């Protein structure tokens, strides 16, 4: 079964109230959604926002006309929710709780700097790199979830990485 065909089945089942089907959609897409929101909001807010995106998607599922376009549709909701977060929040920089105990001070600083550098990139590169470097998704996975062609993902990764290297290099000078 293709990615789109499986999405089609899961979306239809979810719309009929099948919570396990929606759980599978969550499992398949939560990392993509997290990467998209993390490219726009502080790390400490991203997990909650992922939940909000899925709750919103569940409520709006009846309005999705093309079940096979679920990934792109969900990505749009994630962008809107993340952009909306900025309208009602004061941005603060925060780190996950366990970092302090499991990382060196230098690593913490480098991680913060790397994340900030990714977030300066254009949206297409930023989101793709978040999926690859933060969530650990491969290029083919990113293409399957977002609906982008593998060629587009490859270009985004390549160009995004080039810009990221420049940003990090510039930041350390």
């Amino acid at each position: 079964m293709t990615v789109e065909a499986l999405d089609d089945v899961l979306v239809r089942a979810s719309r009929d109230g099948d919570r396990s089907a929606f759980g599978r959609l969550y499992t398949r897409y939560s990392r993509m959604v997290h990467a998209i929101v993390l490219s726009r909001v502080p790390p400490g807010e991203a997990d909650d926002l992922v939940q909000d995106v899925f709750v919103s998607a569940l409520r709006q599922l009846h309005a999705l006309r093309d079940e096979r376009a679920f990934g792109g549709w969900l990505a749009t909701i994630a962008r809107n929710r993340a952009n909306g977060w900025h309208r009602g929040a004061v941005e603060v920089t925060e780190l996950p709780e366990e970092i302090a105990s499991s990382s060196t001070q230098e690593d913490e600083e480098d991680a913060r700097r790397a994340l900030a550098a990714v977030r300066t990139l254009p949206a297409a590169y930023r989101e793709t790199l978040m999926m690859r470097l933060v969530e650990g998704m491969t290029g083919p996975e990113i293409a399957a979830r977002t609906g982008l062609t593998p060629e587009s993902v490859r270009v985004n990764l390549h160009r995004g990485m080039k810009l990221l290297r420049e940003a990090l290099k510039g930041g350390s000078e």
Partner: protein
Amino acid sequence: MSDDYLWDRSGTPDPEIARLESLLGRYALRTAGVPPAAVPASRRHARVLVALAAALVLLIALGAFAMRFLWRTGAAWPIASVTGGPTINGQPITPASRFGIGDEIRTDSRSTAVVEIARVGELTIAPSSTVTLMQTRGGRHRVRLDRGRVSARVWAPPFTFSVHTPAGLASDIGCAFDLRYDGGAGEVRVTSGWVDFDGEERSSLIPAGALAELRGQNPGSPYYADAPPAFRAALRAYDHGTGPVSAVIATARPRDAMTLIHLLERAPRAERAPLYDALARMAPPPPGVTRDGVLGRDLEMVDDWRRSLGLGGIKRWWVYWRDAL
């Protein structure tokens, strides 16, 4: 740089990418695989407690109000009034008659019947109609219209009351509509609130003052009852796949923006651009609604745009209480 490693982690790891993975991996989603409802979210606890407390107060305050929407599963509906000689399951309706699940009310060319929809509204069965009660319980009441016409007035949350027809399912979103179906064709006409009509392949969201034609197993696109004949003809042709969207746009008045918004939701990508441009001229999009977003089928944006047309809120069903009296 190793493009293979960047692409799918194959080949020799690029040290810089591996270092970035190690650094940034700490920000990865920590709840992957857990559906939204089951996620423990400590940072939400305070908000959840406040919300629960508020909900409790609200529940107590609205207890009596909620009674309206309670109904014993399968309990028969009272028959409020009749004219002429309608029948229920082939027998004349008497003062003791009630409309239960599986019962069929038939009216001839000179009779009508009015039944109460549990406690949430009233259904008038016009002459020459056949209606069967399919389901009734708190929050969900369904009848089937095999032929003829019914008029419903309902004051209840969306999708509480629905009418099955061979063309699809008409669901009340508060609160008054007429539905006609006979011989493979019909129409649903909304006089207050909204109706959602779901066909085999298509859905139409119809606001007050508008109607949708029914044909086969799908509803047509909604349009206002006062739409000019040329617009209706162009829309009908487009719905049936025999006419271009450009003809619909060319004959649309500013008031027909409602119809174009509907088309924007279901049109293929190539047709969304001219629809967007026409709509933007008739009713400029509100802040936050962008051309790229709408063409990319951002349904939240489309909903925002629809709301900006001043058609009334779909979710604010309670404001139509006067029409349910």
